[in-house]
């Protein structure tokens, strides 16, 4: 056995050397090639992939219906994540990488731990059999050699392109996927699709390195609304020429052009089309003359440079890793503050550096369920003083949905948040908490219910089960303010630490770990009642009040100590004297 694998290795090495000698370097740059399709590949596919992607690769496996994004239909040769240019097939290596690494933010898992490398290559070969176009195809790679290093200046330039090239239309002004075109987007199969929330880099399907971002920008995301943006720039024109064209076009639409200007415009356009013609020849699969190739390379260089700036900007937006949930040392601590608590937009909130992060998942315990919630987390900060507690909750939502009728269910849907506490805080670890979704008969929960239609109202509710929330007859005074901006809600809530209604309301006591949980509804995602995003129980604590006694006890102890020392010294002296 050992010998055999040694032989295999020898043969592979020999084969590799032969390959290196025979194939030009460009072929190698595409990475490894898949083996011929085999029975083994098909068997593996049927076993591991067909449940979602379907036996015939049409993306229609038995599990497909409840998945969003949908599993890919392989029969049209449309692959989202490619290292190749617009309207090109992926390389074998691209397919291998996706199988190996999975697609973050989707249901596609990483198979590298579960399948051997050979098995994954067999899968690549089988997947290619679903689309005829792979035969004889040699997709063109995106040139990533001109990478512009990350810098403040590059990010600033990239931001300008982000704003001016139309990224904002779908991804929104600050990039949370909340652009004005976002609510209407569908993919080429007619399924609902959302633009990426660029702040959540851990959800980027094809990875979040600057190179990954650059490739998506140049190559587009096939089958989705995300186009290639290489056409955004005027190929072959200098920045000055391009600016002049803008000027002339504006004039053309308003006052009209003089004869000389018309001529000037025609010349600029001719130059642009000359370069575009070379580009189109490449896209149409024609061989270029050497001088044409040089011209194209020169013309593309500044465009690629601009695209790297844009990639650097997108990269600058958020952390790569999903924040750690609010447990352990990340637990939410309400901070004590003498005097008035900060209002919604108070600078004081910045004093708390880290926002506590509460992940949400879909409610799938009872019908109607939510398998694909769009709100994936709530974040929180909190302050309290001797009488009151204030929270500031934030959560991302790509659309602000005021009450409206859902097309599918006929229900009235709207954006909303509920913050949940147990009515009675459990005493010690053996005392069970209420059921994590809206409590149970024996252990009710106390809710703060907020809805977008009344952004300054929080209603107190009591729930004794997943579907049994009732508005309390006795409402404690609670101040609230909710605001939606750039794809994010911010909700400020203030209540007194204790209330009169001790039977139904949670009482906040410093130093006690208090369970907290969330429910969030995105109206535009058809969410209402039990169809929502939920969290499990987390705990938070009102940091113990820094005691005034610290000014009393230490000096007192010091005084006593000094007194004792004196006493000791005197008694020793006395003894010596006697």
């Amino acid at each position: 056995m050992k010998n055999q694998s040694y032989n295999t290795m020898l043969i592979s090495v020999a084969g590799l050397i032969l390959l290196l000698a025979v194939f030009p370097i460009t072929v190698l740059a595409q990475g490894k090639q898949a083996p011929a399709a085999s029975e083994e590949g098909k068997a593996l596919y049927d076993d591991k992939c067909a449940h979602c992607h379907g036996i015939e690769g049409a993306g229609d496996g038995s599990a497909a219906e409840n998945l969003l994004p949908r599993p890919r239909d392989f029969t049209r040769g449309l692959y989202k994540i490619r290292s190749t240019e617009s309207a090109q097939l992926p390389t074998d290596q691209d397919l291998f990488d996706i199988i190996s690494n999975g697609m973050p933010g989707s249901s596609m898992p990483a198979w590298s731990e579960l399948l051997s490398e050979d098995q994954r290559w067999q899968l690549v070969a089988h997947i290619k059999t679903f689309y005829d176009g792979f035969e004889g195809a040699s997709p063109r790679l995106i040139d990533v050699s001109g990478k512009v290093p990350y810098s403040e200046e590059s990010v600033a330039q990239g931001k300008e392109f982000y704003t001016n090239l139309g990224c904002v239309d779908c991804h929104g002004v600050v990039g949370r996927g909340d652009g004005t075109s976002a609510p209407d987007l569908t993919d080429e199969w007619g399924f609902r699709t959302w633009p990426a929330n660029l702040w959540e880099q851990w959800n980027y399907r094809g990875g979040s390195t600057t190179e990954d971002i650059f490739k998506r920008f140049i190559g587009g995301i096939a089958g989705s609304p995300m186009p290639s943006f290489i056409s955004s720039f005027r190929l072959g024109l200098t920045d000055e020429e391009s600016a002049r064209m803008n000027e002339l076009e504006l004039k053309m639409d308003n006052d009209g052009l003089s004869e000389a200007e018309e001529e000037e415009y025609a010349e600029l356009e001719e130059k642009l089309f000359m370069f575009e013609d070379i580009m189109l020849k490449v896209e149409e699969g024609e061989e270029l003359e050497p001088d044409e190739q040089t011209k194209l390379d020169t013309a593309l260089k500044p465009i690629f440079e601009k695209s790297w700036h844009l990639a650097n900007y997108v990269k600058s937006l958020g952390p790569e890793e999903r924040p750690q949930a609010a447990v352990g040392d990340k637990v939410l601590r309400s901070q004590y503050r003498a005097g008035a608590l900060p209002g919604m937009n108070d600078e004081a909130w910045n004093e708390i550096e880290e926002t506590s992060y509460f992940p949400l998942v879909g409610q799938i315990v009872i019908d109607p369920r939510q398998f694909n919630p769009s709100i994936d987390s709530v974040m929180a900060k909190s302050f309290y003083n001797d009488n009151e507690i204030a929270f500031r909750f934030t959560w991302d939502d790509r659309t602000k949905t005021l009450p409206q009728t859902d097309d599918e269910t006929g229900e009235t849907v709207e954006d909303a948040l509920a913050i949940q506490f147990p009515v009675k805080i459990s005493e010690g670890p053996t005392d069970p908490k209420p059921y994590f979704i809206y409590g149970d008969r024996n252990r009710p929960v106390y809710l703060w219910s907020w809805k977008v239609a009344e952004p300054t109202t929080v209603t107190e509710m009591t729930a004794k089960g997943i579907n049994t929330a009732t508005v309390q007859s006795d409402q404690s005074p609670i101040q609230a303010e909710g605001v939606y901006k750039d794809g994010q809600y911010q909700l400020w809530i203030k209540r007194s630490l204790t209330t009169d209604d001790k039977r139904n309301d949670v009482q906040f006591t410093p130093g006690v770990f208090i369970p907290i949980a969330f429910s969030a509804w995105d109206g535009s995602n058809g969410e209402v009642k039990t169809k929502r995003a939920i969290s499990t129980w987390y705990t938070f604590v009102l940091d113990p009040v820094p005691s005034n006694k610290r000014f009393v006890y230490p000096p007192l102890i010091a005084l006593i100590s000094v007194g004792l020392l004196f006493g000791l010294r005197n008694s020793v002296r006395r003894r010596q004297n006697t």
Partner: protein
Amino acid sequence: MKTKVVTILTLLIACVYVASATAAGGDEEVESLVFPASYKAMSVSNGGTISGMVKFDGAAPEMKKLEITKDAQVCGKTDKHDESIVLGEGNGLKNTIVYLMDISSGADFPSDAKYEMDQKGCQFDPHVRLLPVGKRLTMINPDRINHNVHIFSSVNAAFNKSQPGTRRKMNVKAVKKAEGPVNVKCDVHGWMQAWIAYIPHPYFAVTDENGKYTLENVPPGTYQLGYWQEACGSNKDAPVSVTVEAGGAVTQDFTLALK
């Protein structure tokens, strides 16, 4: 610990549970045109003409007004309506493709023709575009706002490129295979929708605002005459046989109803 177990359990249930369909979607299959296996271009003399009118059967359906959800200052200057059924005089049906299914040799495309599609005011014009295989299409954007040209081809590679306000004219690469009609969309303005048919020979026509069409310079012979209309479907399973005499003129009308 317990909460962890619950979370894992709920996730497990999520993986196994198969509920009724939640997401709407899955466009219905678009009927395609019928193309000859091969086509040879030659000069045609003494060709005949096939012309006629395509009528819509029944009362004109209401042309649904499209909701302009963004860039209203540009896109909302004029009202936009669903263009799947557009009727003219005598219920003449616009935007129907009428064509010869089985012609294998005949005239070439005019060499000087330009193929354009305008996006003015956030509406594609024409709504149905015939584009010869091997010819480039010029997309025009006089709106000074961002559009994207998304062509849902499947026989040819699908296409999706951005055309911002600074790209007044953008040429789209030629394709190699006959296909279509395929959908054209602008994802930025979700209501913008049109069709492109990549055609291998020139014997295709799109009906005008009064439902009229003409196929000229048809070599004498007997042909299968087909139609395609986005809302009424096609007759590819039951085409009409027409015989064209040298220099003659044939009239063939169609009456179409909603699918």
